[in-house]
């Protein structure tokens, strides 16, 4: 019964999406308000059907209804309820179904926001969205059908991949990633709508920027949460490995970030309209490429889902989307003409351009390194991969240059300025750069690129802080009270500006954190017998012994390791090796002792309970916690920039109500 209902819901959503695409394009051509209204209803219908299908699947997972194919594939009576819910996105078919849910929610929200938009482009955007929706509904109905009927109904299932049960981050990371990935469909549709109608006006640009910023926030968090999860669960001691799957999430982030910056320039100066839309289109294409890479089995990585027939289907969609985008750009980009020229290079505008160039360069580097092995294998049947040193060698200079720009760009005034003005803007932050450089040297940093990152980071931090408090200082100078100045100067009209600089502060911290943690750490692999000790960094570790633990859904071998720092007892750390019934292979789970200064990271490589020996990976990773903190800061900055301005109050104020305070009026 449940499988049949589920399949029907998926079919209904496919029909609604198809019909919505047709009415949307018809509405775009005829500019008919009635057709546009029906399009909106069809979109809401699609969202509702997808929501219902997902609800049905979650219910089936919670009730252990093994007549449903997907539940029989990933469900288990042994796992806790939260794991059952998480199972929705733990495997291929469910993850595509979840994709449908997220897409439906985004489409409904964006459609609602666009309901009063001019009819010349909004229906076209909706049409592009609905074509994407129809494709994913088709994917769910066909090659990734989760609602297969299973007979005979099994008594129990294997449960989801144990690595996904190993850490609670698995609850947050995948939804975040989908909210980022899927959300890029919205700006793609908006950009296509602008190109199809041949106009990118101010209102469209604002919508584009906002709908780009929202998934960008989620993608930013998702990428770092993925790294955090890898760090806390996988046990090799790092957070980033330039794995194809990681690259798949990183590339659209790079182009989206570039687009956010160029959109700012478009908004301010009316330039780079075609470039901004190109970046938005590329972002969407990269998310589809990423989906293809993780779900087709071409990268037979342990990161990705099992091989399946959906790879070719996604590849066809990717090719079609690529052809459509290139064709559309070629045909229409000249319509989005610039209002004025760009002006000289040593201005803030110029720095925006260099920033964009660097982001695109970064994207190309990662893309080439990721796709190169595929091309070689297809052409010459040779198997290989591009090693991590390539990515490191390429990305370190680009990353440090970006940080350098992040300091110099905002320091430079808009438009042409005199040499004296330039000196006044660029010289003072050098002091902070030198201070941080000196601190690094004193702390023992010798790696050139880390020192460069520190110097640029100090410079950038100085500029960012000055820019953050500038409106406050101006308001103080005019004699405003602190609370007033803070609420108006930082949060009111200037919220977007403040959000941008908060995000910059987060980025600065991340680059410094990456530079320090990747060059200043210590790593040792040791084999310890019971009672033996080893010293790593400032810590002395003593292996106390192994114990067996039995939990409902797993068995565990737990190592007790006493940690001392000099005379101070820091307690016992307990890295473990979990064994799940469904698999013969044990899964190591590291433990991390986190402080603001550094992490002490213990991971079991092998453990022999009979001989009481322990093969242990010990790492001291400095400053890692700052990566997670900085990501929170970046996301906060994004949210601040996203919150819409208050609507004009003047028009609605009736005579009896006191006149709105000047701040509110200014905010409109």
């Amino acid at each position, binding site marked *: 019964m449940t499988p049949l209902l589920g399949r029907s819901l998926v079919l209904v959503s496919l029909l609604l999406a198809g019909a919505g695409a047709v009415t949307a394009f018809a509405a775009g051509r005829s500019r008919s308000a009635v057709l546009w209204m029906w399009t909106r209803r069809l979109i809401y219908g699609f969202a509702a059907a997808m929501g219902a299908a997902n609800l049905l699947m979650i219910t089936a997972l919670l009730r252990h209804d093994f007549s449903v194919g997907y539940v029989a594939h990933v469900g288990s009576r042994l796992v806790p309820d939260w794991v059952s819910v998480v199972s929705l996105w733990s495997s291929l078919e469910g993850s595509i179904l979840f994709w449908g849910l997220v897409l439906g929610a985004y489409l409904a929200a964006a459609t609602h926001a666009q309901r009063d938009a001019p009819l010349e482009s909004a229906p076209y955007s909706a049409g592009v969205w609905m074509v994407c929706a129809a494709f994913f509904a088709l994917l769910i109905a066909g090659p990734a059908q989760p609602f297969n009927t299973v007979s005979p109904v099994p008594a129990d299932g294997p449960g989801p*991949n144990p690595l996904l049960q190993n850490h609670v981050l698995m609850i947050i990371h995948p939804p975040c990633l989908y909210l980022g990935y899927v959300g890029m469909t919205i700006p793609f549709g908006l950009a296509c709508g602008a190109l199809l109608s041949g106009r990118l006006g101010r209102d469209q640009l604002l919508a584009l920027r906002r709908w780009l910023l929202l998934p960008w926030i989620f993608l930013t968090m998702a990428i770092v949460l993925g790294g955090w999860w890898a760090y806390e669960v996988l046990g*090799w001691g*790092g957070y980033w490995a330039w794995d194809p799957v990681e690259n798949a999430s990183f590339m659209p982030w790079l182009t989206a970030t570039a687009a956010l910056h160029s959109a700012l320039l478009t908004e301010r100066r009316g330039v780079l309209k075609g470039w901004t839309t190109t970046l938005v289109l590329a972002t969407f294409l990269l998310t589809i490429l990423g989906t293809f890479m993780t779900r087709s089995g071409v990268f037979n990585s342990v990161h990705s889902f099992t091989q399946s027939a959906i790879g070719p289907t996604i590849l066809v969609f990717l090719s079609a989307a690529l052809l459509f985008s290139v064709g559309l750009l070629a045909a229409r980009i000249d319509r989005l003409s610039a209002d004025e020229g760009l002006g000289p290079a040593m201005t803030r505008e110029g720095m925006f351009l260099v920033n964009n160039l660097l982001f695109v360069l970064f994207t190309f580097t990662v893309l080439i390194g990721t796709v190169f092995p595929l091309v070689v294998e297809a052409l010459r049947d040779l198997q290989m*991969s*591009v*090693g991590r040193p390539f990515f490191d060698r390429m990305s370190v200079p680009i990353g440090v240059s970006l940080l350098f720009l992040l300091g110099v760009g905002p320091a430079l005034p808009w438009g042409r300025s005199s040499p004296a003005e330039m000196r006044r803007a660029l010289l003072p932050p050098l002091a902070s750069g030198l201070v941080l450089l000196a601190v690094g040297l004193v702390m023992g940093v010798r790696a050139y690129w880390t020192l460069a990152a520190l110097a640029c980071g100090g410079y950038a931090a100085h500029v960012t802080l000055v820019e953050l408090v500038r409106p406050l200082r101006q308001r103080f100078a005019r004699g405003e009270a602190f609370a007033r100045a803070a609420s108006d100067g930082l949060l009111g009209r200037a919220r977007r500006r403040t959000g941008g600089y908060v995000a910059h502060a987060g980025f600065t911290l991340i680059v410094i954190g990456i530079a320090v943690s990747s060059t200043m750490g210590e790593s040792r692999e040791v084999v310890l017998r019971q009672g033996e000790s080893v010293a790593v960094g400032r810590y002395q570790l003593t292996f106390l012994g192994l114990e067996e633990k039995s939990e409902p859904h797993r068995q565990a071998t737990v190592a007790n390791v006493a940690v001392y720092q000099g005379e101070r007892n820091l307690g016992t750390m307990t890295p473990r090796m979990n064994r799940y019934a469904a698999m013969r292979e044990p899964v190591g789970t590291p433990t991390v002792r986190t402080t603001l200064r550094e992490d002490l990271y213990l991971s079991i490589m*092998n*453990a022999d309970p009979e001989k009481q020996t322990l093969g242990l990976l010990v790492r001291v990773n400095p400053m890692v916690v700052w990566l997670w903190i900085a990501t929170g800061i970046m996301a906060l900055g994004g949210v601040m920039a996203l919150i819409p301005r208050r609507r004009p109050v003047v028009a609605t104020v009736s005579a009896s109500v006191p006149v709105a305070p000047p701040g509110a009026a200014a905010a409109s």
Partner: protein
Amino acid sequence: MSGGEQVLIPPVARAKKRGRWFLIGALAVAASAFALITAGGIGKNLVYYWGPTELHAAGDKAVGATIRLGGLVAPGSLKNNSGASGLEFDVIDRQGGRVHVRSTSVPPQMFREKIGVVVEGTMTRDGWFESNRLMVSHSNEYRVPSEDARVDVQKLIKSTDGLEPEKAAKP
């Protein structure tokens, strides 16, 4: 933009045009430099996925190159030196190739004879494969790989793509 009179436009336009050519030239130079650096970077950092037979066929090319060698730990070949050199074992494939491996890394829990392994390292002149990274491959189904010599080496190595010592599933 105050000088918007007709007379002023031609020189501005010419300067604009010159600026554009300059920009295109600069971009072309930057793009080719980037392409060169990238090509060189990729060429130097390739990781070859080879089985024992292919490793031998590569001859001198294998010395110094980064290689992921995949195969089966030969029965009876495993020696666990507690000294500095760590583990010694032979990796074999179904074509009868055999490579002596010295590994300095602490082996993962599942490591034993007759199991499919992937070792990353390089070939030395004296015929040893020196490795500092030893991986027992996780298949996508998270089961231990096949235990007979008919293991598909390429598939085995591919299954460790992106695998840092003990790395696995992430959607």
